[in-house]
């Protein structure tokens, strides 16, 4: 039986070295987990901001009500400050998300470059350039937008 002819554009199944395939799979799995984490952070942020928004509207209602007693108004101001504080914590999502996305982007770029190099070989200008994978684990390990720890030395 004749072997099935192959072309450079249709590599045989299993042609990719096992170690490289495992490395790519690791990178893609980590990227997938990081995207799941990003989804949880986004969801947590939206929940907190919505709760702060509704809470603030309620307290503003108390503050503008002329029939509202002074002690109730003082409690409303305290509660409003709390809502604002929760919103300040939640709004830090953008910073965490940006770092998470930048890290994942670098990982995916490395995978794409490795695949391109192995499938197409060197380009006209010479050896294909492969962007380096992140050297360190993702610095964002947070799973939710709860305030982080404080340690004084």
């Amino acid at each position: 039986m004749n072997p099935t002819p192959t072309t450079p554009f249709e590599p045989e199944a299993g042609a990719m070295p096992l170690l490289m395939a495992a490395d790519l799979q690791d990178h893609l799995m980590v990227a997938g987990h990081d995207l799941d984490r990003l989804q949880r952070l986004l969801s947590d942020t939206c929940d907190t901001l919505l709760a702060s928004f509704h809470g603030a509207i309620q307290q503003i209602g108390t503050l503008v009500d002329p029939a509202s007693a002074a002690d109730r108004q003082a409690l409303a101001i305290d509660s409003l400050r709390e809502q604002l504080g929760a919103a300040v914590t939640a709004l830090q999502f953008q910073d965490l998300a940006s770092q998470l996305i930048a890290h994942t982007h670098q990982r995916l770029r490395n995978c794409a470059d490795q695949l391109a190099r192995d499938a197409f070989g060197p380009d006209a200008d010479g050896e294909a350039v492969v962007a380096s994978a992140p050297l360190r684990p993702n610095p964002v390990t947070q799973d939710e937008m709860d305030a982080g720890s404080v340690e004084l030395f």
Partner: protein
Amino acid sequence: MHSILAVDDSASMRQMVSFTLKSAGYKVTEAVDGQDAYDKAAMGGFDLVLTDQNMPNLDGIGLTRKLRDHPNFKTTPILILTTESSDQMKQAGRAAGATGWLVKPFDPVRLIEVIRKVVR
């Protein structure tokens, strides 16, 4: 009024930090990375430096190290506010001369409590 140098390459973080500190009565100067912070710090007049860790040009630990070598910053509190929570990074911050390590996201009330504790 105490003066604080707030350092972060994220504009949204600088806004959140500045809003929190100004609401508590502090004067705030912002810097966009460690090098910008060092240039501004060298002019003097700060009672505390609150810095991010991962930034272009000069990171928070590098900034801390440089500031500790500066005669005006031998005893000025330097707090690192970062997403990094590994013990290895914390120890590196401590070795560089940081006063404390705060993991993002920060709670505004807690942040002000910590600052009041370290700024005399």
